[in-house]
């Protein structure tokens, strides 16, 4: 536990309210919108290979988002959420982590998975909830997870992953693993009590943890001005005694740089860090939402100008690490791959009936076995009412 060093506060004899107005957060920017670097900016650790791997993930995400939105409209999947416009936050931070660092995400952060090797088929099997989905078809679309890739399965109730990330990091520290946890959350989810409890415990228990807030200015239709009256999320970090940094979340190099420095403090000194990345959700909240009712085209267009993908592409082109021709070819290949994998995933059967009762407990207890047996008998009597389950049973 932390031993706080005795701190001498000045004494006054007239009431003096501390307003916090002296507190201001500079915003870290490295890459300009035109693809050139700011003077004096220092690059994160990045070489051509890493840069292209990040950009490859960007291209995948753009094409994937576009294609799966269309698939949802066609009724092929029931639900989808894009991360369009926010790719730099989750891909850039993943690129500054080690692969054995844990990622606890909210739901709009598929980047670290692809970056670490989650295949297009892995994504598709989850979205089509077929029997090859790692989650066995149990979670809603976009609630991916992979133990192998150190990416916790997404949980729907907001902010619950934030205190869990403190626990994960605590265990990493106890085990002496030299790795850290990075926890993503939205500025809206930060209104939950769990967020505050987690921040407090993180500094108290000195855990190797990076809190990564994607401040995309909206929580469904609620603009951040209606979510909180204060200056964003960053001041809360300071309030809980945490080193805090605000960054341009559409600048992939700034995201990498901040995460890189944060990781050092987390792993070497067990100092939790708060990063507030300013970004914008270019698409709808989810396929159940239509943003035209609560924000203007003008505002959206303003943010499109700072598109993180385009910005990085300009930088890559300027350095001659990438060409327009390669860009076109890579997009075509990705489109093809997304189309093929979607068609494959659609044809893979859904999980068989017996998967209903596995994993509820470590072993299916008698009452669940009994309920499954009754259900099976029932479905055998009414096969037409259960077409996707009745064509095969485990023991046939």
């Amino acid at each position: 536990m932390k031993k706080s060093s005795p701190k001498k506060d000045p004494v006054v004899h007239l009431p003096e309210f501390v307003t916090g107005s002296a507190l201001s957060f500079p915003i870290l920017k490295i890459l300009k919108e035109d693809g050139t670097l700011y003077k004096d900016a220092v690059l994160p650790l990045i070489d051509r290979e890493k840069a292209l791997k990040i950009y490859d993930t960007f291209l995948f995400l753009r094409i994937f988002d576009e294609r799966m939105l269309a698939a949802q409209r066609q009724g092929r999947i029931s639900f989808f959420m894009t991360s369009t416009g926010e790719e730099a936050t989750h891909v850039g931070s993943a690129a500054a982590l080690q692969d054995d660092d844990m990622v606890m995400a909210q739901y709009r952060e598929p980047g670290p998975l692809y970056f670490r090797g989650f295949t297009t088929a892995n994504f598709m099997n989850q979205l089509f909830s077929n029997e090859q989905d790692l989650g066995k078809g149990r979670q809603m679309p976009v609630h991916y997870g992979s133990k192998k890739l150190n990416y916790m399965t997404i949980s729907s109730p907001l902010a619950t992953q934030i205190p869990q990330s403190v626990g994960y990091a605590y265990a990493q520290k106890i085990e002496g693993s030299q790795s850290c946890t990075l926890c993503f959350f939205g500025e809206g989810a930060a209104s939950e009590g769990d967020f505050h409890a987690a921040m407090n415990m993180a500094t108290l228990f000195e855990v190797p943890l990076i809190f990564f807030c994607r401040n995309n200015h909206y929580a469904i239709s609620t603009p951040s001005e209606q979510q909180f009256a204060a200056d964003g999320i960053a001041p809360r970090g300071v309030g809980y005694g945490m080193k805090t940094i605000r960054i341009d979340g559409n600048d992939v190099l700034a995201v990498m740089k901040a995460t890189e420095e944060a990781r050092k403090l987390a792993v070497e000194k067990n100092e939790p860090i708060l990063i507030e990345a300013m970004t914008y959700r270019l698409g709808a909240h989810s396929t159940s939402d239509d943003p035209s009712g609560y924000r203007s085209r003008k505002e959206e267009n303003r943010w499109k100008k700072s598109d993180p993908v385009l910005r990085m592409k300009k930088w890559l082109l300027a350095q001659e690490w990438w060409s327009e021709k390669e860009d076109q070819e890579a997009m075509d290949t990705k489109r093809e791959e997304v189309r093929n994998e979607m068609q494959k995933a659609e044809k893979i059967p859904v999980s068989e009936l017996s998967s209903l009762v596995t994993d509820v407990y470590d072993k299916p207890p008698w009452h669940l076995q009994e309920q499954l047996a009754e259900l099976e008998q029932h479905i055998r009597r009414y096969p037409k009412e259960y077409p996707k389950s009745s064509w095969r049973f485990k023991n046939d």
Partner: protein
Amino acid sequence: MSTKTITIREALREAIFEEMERDPTVFLFGEEVGEYNGAYKISEGLLDQFGPRRVIDTPISESGFTGLAVGAAMVGLRPIVEFMSFNFSLVAMDQIVSNASKMHYMSGGMFNVPMVMRGCNGSAAQVSSQHSHCMESIFSYIPGLHVISPSSAKDHKGLLKSAIRDDNPVIFLENELLYSLPGEVPSDEFTIPIGVAEIKKEGTDVTVIAHSRMVEFVKVALPALSEMGIDIELLDPRTLKPLDIETIVRSVKKTNRVVIVEEGWRFCGIGSEIADQIYSACFDYLDSPVVRVTSTENPMPYAKNLEVATLPSPEKIIEAIKSVTYRN
């Protein structure tokens, strides 16, 4: 008496509208209830009509705004808290279970908490385990809470108005898949008392007890049942707590057979309580053990085939009815 046909969504909106108009202490709180008109458009137009002092968009802090409503209710306001879905009421459990429900008792009757907590309960179309909870037995277990879960437009309107006027904290459980269901309601002002069941269809052979969306499932089974010559009595408790056991017992004494349908899990489900009360009150009148139709006891999976298999279905209800009438 003249009637009109409206959807359950409209019935809820009319109830809130009329009560806010009648009583200036009625307020609406919740995530996206104002400018967005509610996640399911229940509160459409209310912000325009009553303004931002009475229709309040909250931050994403369920425990926070439920506590705020408990506090405001103790001063004399009548808050209606909308949970975007009842699954998120789990974040506010301490405020509901340890505070709203007990404040009147623990303060020796000095403070009461006249508030309504409403929103959709149960599964919807493929929303998976964390968005499909059936909360009726959890809340009905708690002394101090009234629990209502209606099935028709008329019942939604009349009971929500009574809930808003009730001096106790009330849990009002709706269902997303029922919101667009139309039904007849009286054109004039009316309320339906809390704690009174309704026989939705009279019959002689089996009492089938169902609430909320399960009433629709039973209705789907009716043609097949009448083809088999089975005439069921469909009883909707409408209020789960307090439970109208008198009406239930009267029906059981007539039919001598009972099937209880609920969307929730079997173990400690609301049907366990109803069955227990039936056994205690009229065991001698039963010609068969009570049979329950429930979900299987797994978290709700997302995949459509598994979701359908988990839930009750008209066919499962038919089988249960056949079993109490020894037709298998």
